């Protein structure tokens, strides 16, 4: 097998539209995803899982072309799936199997000889932290363990590209941290390109260096996270007492970017040359009291809010 060219995009989408009946789950999506760790962000129903299933060749697009690791998905879906690992969002296993037999079986399905698949199963289960529980029936596993076994079956054939659909779903904080550490390790130390679909911004921010934000089936924004966050200007968390929405409008009228959160705080982007003084001046002019002001740093949440056009 030829090693993947690290400079070539791992995934290329050209005007891809996927429909469920009359509903367009993906609308004219175009993107070129590089190697590395790519976050697929979007609210529920944005089309993240649909995109992954389309890339696996499980959902034929109504129009458009997709290339994964150089293979056209429509023409050679089996060649794509041979080099790709998929960790589904929902709880998925083959009933009645122990972890090691399940992962080994998945290795065989992916084309590994039986003995090699069994050896890989042991290695991969140890890697994901299930070495001690490998002879247990999967049905007795906790939610966190089931997430890990799904990751193990996706890794057993040593894919070049890994699709992870909400890998931290249902996990406790410790398990979530461990899973994210694994994901990060896979992308960095093991040099496997991965596409991490999640609606949890901290997960993506921790594990990925490139992001695609989907909204209502279309690409809202994409690029390296550091570039999308922007390095110029400063961000302030602001709470005011008084007409909050009027104050927000005033900030926007002044050309400042402002996003309100659910708990009455605002994140305001102020250009480098204009300091926090501007905020106090505007507050004074609009008769609101600044009760809280703290310098912050641009986050993925800001990128997300900007991409989705949230107020």
């Amino acid at each position, binding site marked *: *097998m030829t090693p993947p060219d690290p400079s070539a995009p791992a995934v290329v989408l050209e005007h891809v539209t996927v429909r*469920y*009946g*009359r*509903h367009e789950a993906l609308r004219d999506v175009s993107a070129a995803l590089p190697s590395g760790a790519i976050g697929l962000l979007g609210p529920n129903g944005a089309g993240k899982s649909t995109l992954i*299933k389309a890339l*696996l060749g*499980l*959902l034929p697009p109504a129009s458009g072309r997709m290339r994964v690791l150089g293979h056209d998905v429509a023409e050679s879906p*089996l*060649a794509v*799936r*041979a080099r*790709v690992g*998929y960790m*589904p969002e*929902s*709880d*998925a*296993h*083959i*009933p*009645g199997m122990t972890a090691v037999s399940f992962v080994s*079986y*998945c290795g*065989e*399905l*992916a*084309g*590994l*000889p039986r003995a*090699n698949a069994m050896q*890989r199963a*042991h*290695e*991969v*289960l*140890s*890697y*994901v*932290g299930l*070495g001690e529980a490998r002879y247990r029936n999967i049905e007795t596993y906790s939610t966190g363990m089931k997430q890990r076994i799904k990751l193990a*079956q996706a*890794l057993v*054939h*040593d894919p070049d590209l890994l699709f992870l659909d909400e890998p931290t779903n249902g996990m406790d904080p410790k398990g979530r941290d461990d899973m994210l*550490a*694994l994901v990060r*390790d896979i992308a960095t*130390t*093991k040099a496997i390109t991965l596409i991490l679909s999640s609606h949890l911004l901290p997960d993506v921010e921790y594990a990925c260096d490139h992001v695609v934000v989907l909204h209502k089936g279309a690409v809202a924004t994409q690029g390296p996270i550091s570039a999308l966050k922007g390095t110029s200007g400063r961000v302030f968390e602001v709470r005011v007492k008084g007409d909050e929405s009027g104050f927000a409008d005033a900030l926007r009228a002044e050309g400042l970017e402002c996003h309100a959160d659910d708990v009455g705080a605002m994140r305001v982007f102020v250009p480098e040359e204009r300091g926090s003084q501007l905020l106090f001046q505007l507050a004074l002019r609009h008769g609101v009291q600044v009760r809280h002001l703290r310098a912050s740093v641009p986050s993925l949440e800001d990128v997300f809010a900007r991409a989705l056009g949230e107020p």
Partner: protein
Amino acid sequence: MPIHDQGYRHYTGERTLHGRGWWVIARAGLMDRLRERRFLGLLLFAWSLFVVRAVQLYIGETIAGAAFFTPTERTFQLFLDQQRLFVFFITIYAGAGLIASDRQSHALQIYLSKPITRNDYIGGKLLTLAIFLVAVTWVPAMLLLVLQVLFSGSLAFVADHPRLVFAITLASALQVALAVLTMVALSSLSRSRRFASMLYAGVVFLAAAIARALQASTGHPGWVLLSPENTLLVVNDAIFGGVSDSTVPLAIAIGALVALCAGCIVILERRVRAVDVVA
């Protein structure tokens, strides 16, 4: 070094080309069932009639005056007919959960995200059940024929009934194909193996009962076509050269079975998908 660094290495070994997924699935299905003692017991019990028939053949050949036990083509047809009960139980036991269990545990998306096709998946599931059913139909029937040759010490019986091997093979194949396709298709309709079992029992017994009742009340022989099992008997009569009780033309009976098999294939084609699309 974190503990998760210890287990993972890149794989540099052999990878087989696509196209053997069906065998991987079938082998796993076979091994899964054969690990169950209850199922092994059922398989052994399904050979009890073989033992009885073997004793009959032995008596027919060795004891003078036991002409009653002398085999004919009808003997083998009857044997296969009697095996239908075991075919039913093995089909339910080994077949009901073949796809239903995978649907219940969302395993289809695991299977179909691997480099295998839907045909590989369906083929593997069909083969799993077919192998068990062949083991209780064609294999014992052919062994009986071999025993008859051994007991008689000559190939005269086979020579006198030249189409018997073909008839046993064709009748077994039809019986197995019908059971396997019907059960696996019904299994794909549900997430519960119990419900799939009930559906299959309905197809076998309820359809036969309704067909019989309608036949009795209307006097029309065509109602036999409602029951796949009874339709198969009509075809088997033709295969073994017997006289059928039914007046339904053979071509129509074959057509009904072909239509049923085609219906099962359509169901499998529609139901075996990694993504359930509710449009």
